């Protein structure tokens, strides 16, 4: 191929390739801006012609509808649409965070199980992954919802444990802790215990590096974490009591209720996303050179030590990027909850609120902004973790 540049024969502005490139990019940019401007203009024009209300003042209006799960103090009669937005946002975050935790644990276990030498474990893991990865998530959500509802008895025939935990088709009811004065001391003692454990860990690691002596870190830490708050609890005169759920009329009153919609959604999202995480874990582990494991074995390390100290730290570098993606997917998939009536952001805000208020553009923009923000925050967070994990200075 002849790489010699062709001589520039014209002297015009556009005959210079550099100028030409910039020129066409500017034209493209202008075209895009004009297009956007045209659509926006059109939209505002039509909105005005139809007399549709615009602006965000609706957020201060009273919503006036009931929500089945609220993490804040939401009152059906007086709370505003902005409160509804917050309730929806928190419910989305709740199911996403719980889902990410469960999916990660399950994914890690299945991913390791997939590589197990045990025929049964590795094949079961394979079947699990291939089954749940290949069924659309919406179907799985509906499936689990129907299973949860069909399998559980009505409130009057609840399954109960020690008369304090109840399970029925209205949800899982557990005693609700009531914090009286003095319970702050327990929290403080717990924080002190955590700090103590933190410094203890550092001290024991240093000692281990210096002398090679092992310190029973886990046992001692657990003892501190449990004993300190318990001791303070009794010294402060048992300031925490519980309200037990009680069957009154139609339903249980008192206690904390975990609604079946949340259970079903959590099952579906965790089980579905865990399959992808498991594959990422397997890929990561297989990416660790075989020699590393063999060397660790030659040193006489036990299997679980090899996994946790040699293989996983190296595998994590390969695992984290695809797993970030799955966390983001899980968060976004949580909006499918609208199919089973779990009150998350899409159901509550761009569903019910949109219909009551009718301001589609503002509401959809707010909802999109929320998902964008959540996604960007998760990516930034995990990119930071990834940077920490990356091999340094090699």
């Amino acid at each position, binding site marked *: 191929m002849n790489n010699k540049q062709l001589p520039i024969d014209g002297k015009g502005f556009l005959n210079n390739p550099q100028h030409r490139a910039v020129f066409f990019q500017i034209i493209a940019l202008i075209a895009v801006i004009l297009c956007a401007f045209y659509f926006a203009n059109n939209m505002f024009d039509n909105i005005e012609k139809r007399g549709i209300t615009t602006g965000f003042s609706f957020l201060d209006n009273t919503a006036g509808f*009931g929500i089945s799960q609220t993490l804040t103090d939401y009152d059906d009669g007086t709370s505003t649409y902005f409160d509804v937005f917050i309730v929806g946002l928190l419910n989305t975050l709740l199911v996403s965070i719980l889902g990410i935790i469960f999916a990660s644990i399950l994914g890690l276990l299945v991913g390791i199980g997939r590589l197990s030498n045990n025929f049964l474990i590795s094949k079961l893991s394979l079947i699990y992954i291939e089954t749940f990865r290949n069924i659309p998530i919406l179907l799985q959500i509906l499936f689990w919802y129907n299973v949860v509802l069909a399998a559980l008895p009505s409130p009057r025939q609840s399954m109960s444990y020690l008369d304090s935990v109840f399970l029925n088709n209205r949800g899982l009811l557990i005693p609700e802790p009531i914090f009286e004065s003095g319970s702050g001391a327990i929290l403080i003692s717990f924080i002190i215990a955590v700090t103590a454990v933190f410094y203890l860990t550092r001290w024991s690691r240093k000692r281990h590096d210096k002398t090679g002596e092992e310190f029973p870190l886990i046992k001692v830490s657990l003892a501190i974490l449990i004993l300190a708050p318990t001791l303070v609890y009794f010294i402060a005169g048992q300031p925490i009591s519980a309200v037990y759920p009680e069957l009154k009329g139609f339903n249980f009153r008192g206690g904390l209720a975990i609604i079946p919609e949340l259970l079903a959604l959590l099952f579906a999202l965790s089980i579905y996303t865990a399959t992808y995480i498991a594959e990422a874990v397997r890929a990561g582990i297989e990416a660790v050179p075989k020699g590393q494991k063999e060397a660790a074995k030659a040193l006489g390390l036990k299997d679980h030590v090899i996994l946790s100290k040699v293989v996983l730290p190296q595998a994590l570098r390969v695992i984290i990027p695809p797993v970030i993606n799955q966390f983001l997917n899980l968060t976004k998939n949580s909006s499918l909850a609208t199919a089973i009536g779990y009150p998350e952001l899409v159901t509550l805000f761009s569903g019910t609120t949109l*219909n009551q*208020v009718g301001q589609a553009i503002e509401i959809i923009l707010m909802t999109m902004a929320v998902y964008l923000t959540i996604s960007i925050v998760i990516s930034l967070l995990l990119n930071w973790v990834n940077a920490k994990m990356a091999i340094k200075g090699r």
Partner: protein
Amino acid sequence: MKVTKLALLVGLTAAIPSLSHADTLQDVMEKDVLNCGVSTGIPGFSAADSKGVWKGIDVDFCRSVASAVLGDASKVKYIPLTAKERFTALQSGEIDLLSRASTWTATRDTSLGLNFAGVNYYDGQGFLISAKLGVKSAKELDGATFCIQAGTTSELNLTDYFTANNMEYKAVTYDTSGQTIDGFKKGRCDAVTSDASQLYGLKLKMDDPSTVIVLPEIISKEPLGPVVRQGDDNWFNVVRWSLFAALEAEELGVTSSNAEAMMKSENPSIKRLLGTSGNAGENLGLKSDWAYQIVKQVGNYSEMFDKNVGKDSPLNIDRGLNKLWNQGGLMYAMPIR
């Protein structure tokens, strides 16, 4: 040269008028089909039967407008919408007319850029509950869990009612009426609340309708009617008077079976209705036989009511408030003259 071309392009873009549906009547006539928004399945109001044919009192209203405008009741394209989607579909111009058991409220009429053209069914909100719970009145529902469809006035009325009576409740909100009744069947909630007319329909959807009862209390006013976009007065008139024509026909005793004979009637009111005298049709921008086509092809109001929700239907709902004004009801057509 380039600069001139660019300027031309900019000029052209700015000159393109913004897209809007200013004249729905003309649009419908040009398309030769009426895009009518209906429900995803409310028995008696709008529901597709086993052969996929849409039936119901709201569907009949779509057909009335199509008869008046296009002269053919079958020239309707039904677009099923959930409660959540309905107003956006109308605002965006996806449908020409929304006939989907929608309650006329101040907010909807004033802030959505929509207009309610009238009332084709006076309804009220009620409760459907399992018979074996032994509840006789809504006042005994303290602490109950309700299944509701999202984005309805029912959600708001429920809060109002329970707040006013100082009772507690829990709401489980679903997207479609199908999911709502499914949740109730599976025991997720103690009761369903919705417009009473819909509850009778839902009752029929139960495996054994005798296991559920509709409580006697009506806790709200639910005037249901057709909706059009605001700012298109011609089309608004056409829709409103299509409704009045069916009521007027009932009042004058014109039915689908005697409409042809009535064309020869000497009664001046009937003559004005059927277009043999006066120019009501012309003023609406329609043919003079617009009302005749409605009655001939779809029927008068009592025929629509009886066939879909009244005595000739499985719902068997009493006409109650929906009787004509001179029979003790609220249905009143403005005079055609």
